[in-house]
């Protein structure tokens, strides 16, 4: 019961933040909420928009969940997302934009696998640097984000640039290689389903497998793991690789589901937006479906507010940030109280 009350505080808190933010930006609250609602879940097109916006956040959020559960502060989701895209784009070069293209189905899966591998490799690098050379993950992932971004820029105006060599973009993928749409008129694509499956899979991994158990244990108490002869380094690297793979998958799904081509604006902060999703999802994979949906709904709905304010998605960032600060603040304040020792 107490737990239920606790859980119900989240939506109430979120609603309060929402109302306050709307009021701050001088949007009539009732109308604003109505517009948000209709934009996010008002009709099936709105649902579809919401699902599409939630998908990359859910995946990068899951990535953060795994890494942070393992006690590693991976803030390199952005870089892993991008490198995933680059790997995918490279495969696309050979699988699609060639005289002998692969069959669409094979090309799509090949690109997706490459994206996952790319994200995983980029994260593995940070994990390896931490374990073998003691480079803090926070610093290395920041650096790797930049390197990835520049690398993407180079690829898009160099080896992967579109055929006409006019703009810094890759060739657009043909429709048959893109992920299948769930319905002809809507944006929602098969990636949405993949993301939800990933959430279930990660839940199973963390809470139902030996490997996931080791990751959680190492994150919770590395000393206890050591006392039980569990190799903390191995578990951390694994967490990092899985985390990067998820971010890479997010990149792949964005590439194959929405953008169809790569450019320097490929990642719209999706790597960073995973962090609030993971935190407000309580670092729980299934709860992340909910938190990603909420933020996806806000992003989708915010476009509807154009009549009152041109703020668009930026409003959502404010809401996310305030929600995280509120959540962290309350948690930290509680933790400060002395633990009950019997």
């Amino acid at each position: 019961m107490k737990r239920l009350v606790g859980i119900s505080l989240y939506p109430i808190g979120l609603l309060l933040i929402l109302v306050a933010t709307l009021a701050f930006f001088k949007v009539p609250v009732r109308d604003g909420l109505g517009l948000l609602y209709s934009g996010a879940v008002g009709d099936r097109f709105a649902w579809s928009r919401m699902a599409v916006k939630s998908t990359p956040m859910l995946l990068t959020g899951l990535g953060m969940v795994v890494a942070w559960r393992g006690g590693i502060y991976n803030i390199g989701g952005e870089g892993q997302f991008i490198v995933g895209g680059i790997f995918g784009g490279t495969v696309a070069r050979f699988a699609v934009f060639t005289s002998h293209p692969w069959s669409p189905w094979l090309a799509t899966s090949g690109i997706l696998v490459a994206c996952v591998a790319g994200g995983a490799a980029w994260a593995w690098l940070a994990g390896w640097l931490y374990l073998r050379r003691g480079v803090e993950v926070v610093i290395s992932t920041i650096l790797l984000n930049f390197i990835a971004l520049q690398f993407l820029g180079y690829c898009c105006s160099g080896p992967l640039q579109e055929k006409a060599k006019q703009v810094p973009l890759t060739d657009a993928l043909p429709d048959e290689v893109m992920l299948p749409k769930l319905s002809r008129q809507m944006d929602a694509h098969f990636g949405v389903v993949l993301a939800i499956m990933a959430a279930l899979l990660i839940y199973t991994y963390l809470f139902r497998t030996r490997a996931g158990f080791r990751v959680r244990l190492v994150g919770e108490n590395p000393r206890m793991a050591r006392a039980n002869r569990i190799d903390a380094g191995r578990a951390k690297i694994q967490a990092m690789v899985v985390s990067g793979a998820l971010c890479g998958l997010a990149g792949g799904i964005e590439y194959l589901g929405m953008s169809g081509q790569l450019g320097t604006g490929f990642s719209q902060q999706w790597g960073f937006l995973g962090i609030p999703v993971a935190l407000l999802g309580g670092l729980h994979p299934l709860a992340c479906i909910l938190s990603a949906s909420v933020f996806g709904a806000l992003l989708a709905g915010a476009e509807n507010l154009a009549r009152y304010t041109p703020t668009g998605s930026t409003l959502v960032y404010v809401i996310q940030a305030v929600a995280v600060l509120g959540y962290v603040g309350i948690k930290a304040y509680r933790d400060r109280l002395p633990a009950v020792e019997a």
Partner: protein
Amino acid sequence: MATLIVDNVFKRFGGVAALEAVSVEFRSGEIHAVLGENGAGKSTLMNVMSGFVRPDRGTVLLNGTSIPLGIAFACKQMGIEMIHQHFTLTPAFSVEENLALARLDRLATTIDTKALAGKALAIAKSLEWEVDPSARTGQLPVGVQQRIEILKALSGEAEVLIFDEPTAVLSPSEVEDLFRVLRRLRDEGKCLILIAHKLSEVLGVADWVTVLRNGRVVATAPRDEVDSDKLAFWMVGQMPDRASRSDSKERVDGLTVRSLSIKGDRGEASVSNATFEIRQGEILGFGGVDGNGQVELAETLAQIRKHSSGAVLWCGRPFGSDLPRIGYVPQDRQTDGLALRMSIRDNMLVSALHRPSFWSGPLIRAKQVGAWVDSLIDRFSIKAESGSDLTGKLSGGNQQKVIVSRILDDEPGLLVVLNPGRGLDIKATEYVYDVLLAARDRGAAIALFSTDLDELYSLSDRVLFMLRGQLVDATGASAMLGG
């Protein structure tokens, strides 16, 4: 001339009385040792005197003025300095910077670290200590770091110096030198308080001795009126009879350790040349004061720490991947034994990662594990609503039961146990002891490390003591305490 008077001080932690009606007088020009077993209240007493702990009742007077209880820095400014076992030195700083840091009285000023450290360095000179002011503090030997800590206190004109087990980290020659300096400071009129464990050292340097047991003052006496037997008796009460059980039982080969040497975390030699045997169905007790290599030896036996030389054998062969099954009950249950924010179930699962019946491929068989956890909770009468309760919410005794139950249910061939009864109430202690004895009778070889003599003697078949990484035979407890 300083006099520090502790007047009728009470302090409870949770439900446990750490100090009860403690009154002691410490005078200048004297070295006054405070003796007691672990948990006797020594640390609490000195923390009260130095302002780190606020007592529930009672006062502490310095030269007739009551000290600001519970405010460490104000106590320091009144001239009461404590030399902690864990130094408050910044490892990355030079010696000079550390000495200067202690002398800052305001922040908005430029400083000359050389000048600020000058006084302390002059004191060092007068004490015939060679100190390199530009050396990086963290790279200095522990004994030298302790000197810097003492210099920090002396340069602040401290009148009362409280030393927390200062010899625990020192080599014999360093101990000699420290005592030389203590005597000298006494002759200069300082009031010196020495929290100590080892009787021989206390008898060698102290002028007065106060013994604490279970939070109460047992006795205060001048050095001339006591000897080691008397002090040992005051500290631990009547020495329990040596346990002699299951001698009749036939014993099977178990653990053999030959000339084992182990390095500590900082690369120091923490155990040297240890040789012993524990047969199956035998408890070998390791006594001695904390920090003499027990944790390192225990971790090596539990295959967590690598040894630098020597051999650890099981039934004459090197340890295999599954033989013997090792159970390790660590010293500090909350940091090494449990993940406090995880459930009882998950905390128990740690010991069952290798059990085929709980896993199908990589996946857990939740039902079997759940039933197993429930059965352990039941059998070990752990007080919890269900297996999904967080271990952090359990009482200390139940936490220990979670650890012990998961380990013993695995039927380890070799069991390494550190201070199993520490912090537990009598009932929980009894229970844990019974379980350990049952494991012994089942045929486990048990290495029991304990600083509590009662615990050691009531459980062990044989007892060895650890002193500065060496194993010593003990003919009697007082010999050890005197050693």
